[in-house]
């Protein structure tokens, strides 16, 4: 399915960081949702800032506009504030993009678990993300670090417990 660009993507001022505070807030909100939906569509979990400059998200060749790198940083900071992004290094050159927050994933997983009556059972992480049973689920194919965080979020909610086994990690749902 082709990714659908939002209307702002073809609006040249979208690629200039607006000085007017109110305008800027709306602009940043639009950027955040664009980045997240793009990552979700392409199942991207990490972004490299340098590479991102050339990616079609920030670079619309059709209208010949590019979001300058300082503005990209601002967008990423905004995402971090919202909890959708985490920096992988101190220099802020790579980041994890959580187009769904861990809590949201956790909720989804738990819903599936309880819907199928599998509360109180134990799963390996691999089973959850790559098992045949979960193929139709959104969280199928979720990268391990993301899965782990989601389960940890459930854990702090008291709905699950993560433990380490010989060849990996597992989780029990309550």
């Amino acid at each position, binding site marked *: 399915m082709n990714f659908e660009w939002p209307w*702002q993507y073809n*609006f*040249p001022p979208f690629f*200039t960081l*607006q*000085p*007017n505070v109110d*305008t800027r807030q709306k*602009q940043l909100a639009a950027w955040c949702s664009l980045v997240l939906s793009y990552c979700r569509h392409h199942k991207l979990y990490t972004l490299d800032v340098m590479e991102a400059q050339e990616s079609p998200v920030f670079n619309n060749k059709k209208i010949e506009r590019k979001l300058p790198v300082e503005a990209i940083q601002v967008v990423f900071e905004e995402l971090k504030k919202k909890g959708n992004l985490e920096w992988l290094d101190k220099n802020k050159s790579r980041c994890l993009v959580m187009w769904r927050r861990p809590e949201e994933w956790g909720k989804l997983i738990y819903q599936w678990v309880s819907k199928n009556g599998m509360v109180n059972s134990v799963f390996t992480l691999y089973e959850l993300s790559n098992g045949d049973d979960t193929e139709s689920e959104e969280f199928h194919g979720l990268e391990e670090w993301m899965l782990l965080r989601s389960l940890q979020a459930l854990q702090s909610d008291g709905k699950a417990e993560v433990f380490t086994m010989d060849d990996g990690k597992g989780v029990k749902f309550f």
Partner: protein
Amino acid sequence: MDRFSWSNGLLEINETLVIQQRGVRLYDGDEKSKLDVGVALLSTHRLIWRDIKNHECCMSMPLSQIIFFEEQAAGIGKSAKIVIHLHPSPANKEPGPLQNSKYSYIKLSFKEHGQIEFYRRLTEEMTQRRWENTPVSQPISSGTGSQSGRTRAVGIVGIERKIEEKRKETDKNISEAFEDLSKLMVKAKEMVELSRSIATKIKDKQGDITEDETIRFKSYLLSMGIANPVTRETHGSGTHYHMQLAKQLGDMLQAPLEERGGMMALTEVYCLVNRARGMELLSPEDLLNACKMFESLKLPLRLRVFDSGVMVVQLQSHSEEEMIASALDSVSEKGSLTAEELAKLLGLSVLLSKERLLLAEKMGHLCRDDSVEGLRFYINVF
């Protein structure tokens, strides 16, 4: 001319050069001497003559030898001269170009002019008689009675000595030239002090002196470049001058402002006003101070400063909303506009149209697109 002695032309320690003049010919009495192309130098102690072509031919005479002197005006084919009457030579006089002369006076003929100044300086020196205060030893001449009276030096030493002489002379010339300037500076300082004291007196005794005189005096000070302490301190309450000026501007600027849509940059106002005045031009400071008084004088004009620092004069009746609305109309009609395009559309200056767009952006009606193509404004649809 037998009063001259051979000399090396070097000045002694306490001796200073007063003036020198080229193109001077020496006359022994009324007779032209062979010494016809030279430089005459007057020092505090001596009168020196040096041949231009042969620098080693140099002679001097102490000023004490001079009894009196007079000018001889130029005639047809004759240069102006100074006739110098002399005392008889002292017994211990050093040998010079002439052993005995039947004349007791000489003439300096100024073929390249300069006699007036020379005469004046000679008079000065003869009046001051500085040589009496600071005696110098007689310059030493060479043992031989030959033409060159200089301590003949050959080779490098001689060249060095010549260079040294030249340098000393240049130094003397330069300090001579600047002497006048430093005198002028001293006088100017006195003037500044005087005017400053008067200005403070005016400040203290406001009321004793009439307004007109005060204004006139202030304008004198201003024209001399001295900032008037009175206007600076009291500009808030406004001086009479600025108030009058503000009223004048109010009348003058009505028509041009209306032509230009109610707003003009202060620089435009400055040019317009001064072009109209022709004489008695306004300084930017005066214009600014006058404009600041528009509101307090209840004139229909206002001075307005934008965020970017641009200052404009606008009609009070001029409406902000109308301006913005017209700008927005233009932008939505064309989709997007740059400052230059808007300026062309509305017949404004680029500066003012940019201010208008920025203002609309500030109010949230427009958003900007900043790229290598330039700065464009769109209607804000975020």
